[in-house]
């Protein structure tokens, strides 16, 4: 009984260690070749470009709802012309990277885990090992790199669409002055502090989600239930990690 309880505490630590070792194994074998670059591009298309629609739709509505809430709150102080500043700051610093990474975990992280898990269940990984091809380099690494590339780009699209949503609501619906809206955004948002802070975060979140996704796929039990559990674990763990790392990074970046 005591050992079971102890295992419950030590298991996550062991998993975290194995996950980091997995990362080192991936990075240690990087040898950029034509075929590897091609695979990275293919994966960037599959997990990045194909997530664009959901990211853009969500971004647009997040921008609209942010403006709605901001205008409601700011109106009480007669400061509704500051709406673009509030929307911009919260988007670039926090909401853009965090929401994009959460959506990416749900859309692409799950598909990476399920795909690798199924490859394992259908002996494709074993076949690769027996052909003297390292599956970590061939399968895991391109998906990981594609995730690191995709999330910042998707964050940029999310932010752009959110600003567009904000424009549509604040200027189009609430009839705020377009000149004030854009000038507040231009003067109030700092490139290094606000914009780049979000960019660093999105690189880190992209790496976190895709590492968790490839690791859980690779370590999934090769059964239907095993792949299902691994997929769920990917969403749960990467979402929790994104929010924890967000706090840690924000406290260092600001």
């Amino acid at each position, binding site marked *: 009984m005591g050992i079971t309880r102890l295992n419950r505490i030590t298991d996550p630590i062991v998993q975290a260690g194995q996950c980091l070792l997995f990362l080192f194994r991936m990075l240690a074998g990087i040898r950029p070749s034509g075929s590897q670059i091609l695979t990275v591009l293919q994966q960037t298309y599959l997990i990045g470009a194909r997530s664009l629609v959901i990211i853009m739709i969500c971004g647009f509505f997040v921008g609209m709802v942010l403006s709605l809430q901001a205008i409601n709150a700011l109106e009480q102080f007669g400061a509704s012309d500051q709406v673009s500043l509030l929307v911009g700051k919260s988007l670039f610093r926090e909401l853009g990277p965090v929401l994009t990474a959460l959506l990416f975990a749900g859309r692409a992280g799950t598909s990476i885990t399920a795909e690798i898990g199924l490859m394992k269940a*259908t002996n*494709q990984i*074993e076949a*690769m*090992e027996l*052909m*003297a*091809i390292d599956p970590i380099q061939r399968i895991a690494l391109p998906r990981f790199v594609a995730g690191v590339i995709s999330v910042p780009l998707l964050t940029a699209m999310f932010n752009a669409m959110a600003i567009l949503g904000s424009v549509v609501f604040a200027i189009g619906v609430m009839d705020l002055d377009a000149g004030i809206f854009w000038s507040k955004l231009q003067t109030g948002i700092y490139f290094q502090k606000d914009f780049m802070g979000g960019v660093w975060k999105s690189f880190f979140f992209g790496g976190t989600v895709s590492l968790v996704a490839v690791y859980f796929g690779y370590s999934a039990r090769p059964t239907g239930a095993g792949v299902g559990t691994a997929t769920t674990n990917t969403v749960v763990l990467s979402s929790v990690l994104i929010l924890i790392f967000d706090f840690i990074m924000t406290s260092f970046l600001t």
Partner: protein
Amino acid sequence: MEERTTSAGDAEAPVIQIRDLVFRRGRKTILDGINMDIRRGSIVAFMGPSGAGKTTILRLISGQLRPNEGSIEVNGQEISAMSNRELQRFRRNIGVLLQDGALFTDLTVFENIATPVREHTDLPEPLVRRLVMSKLNAVGLGGIEERMPHELSGGMARRVAFARAVVLDPDLMLYDEPMTGLDPIAVSTIRTLMRETNDALGLTSLIVTHNVAQMSRLVDYCYIIASCKIAGEGPPEELGSSSNPGIDQFMNGKVEGPIPFHYQPPGAPWGLLD
């Protein structure tokens, strides 16, 4: 039919030599005291009831598992003493056909077969194409190179996997239940391919199977593995008429015999060796 090969006692050194092999998973012994000599050019089958450790032997020979005791030498090289790099080099010379083909589902038939070529050689693209197409034609499937694996029937997928396994002309072929789930025509096709490729390229082939009828016409030598040990060995026709009740029951698919219908928990051997 070509000359039958026997395993032990030949002047020519065996290509695979297994001595006093012991393999355990945790406290459970899977294989205990296995000795084998496999001659170059022969087709050898590992038979036995499901879960007897047949696939484990294949995994030990391919270096996926390491034995707890004993030695496995392939071409005079000890597998368990190989470093990872040596093991990778060794695996380039073996072809493996897994149970359901294990084709890469995200690649076309052509790319599946081309994968080992691209990975291990620097051949220019026209040569890769010619090599892949010649193997695909050899298995009778020229013209399907652009199809995806999910568009193939079970027999076709197995033939594509076969083409992929032999594309680099390996010295040693390992088959894990190569005919499971195939129709009789596909079984005959795969069997003919296995025999012809083995003889034409001078390979050595190891086949894990529990299907006696499908194999007896193909293989040169059989090992029956049961209760962690080699329960019987010899050419299939000899084993078929064996007086050992356990071998007789297995080879002739009898319900009555020393191999019990009910599962026996570990530690209670079912007496095939008695």
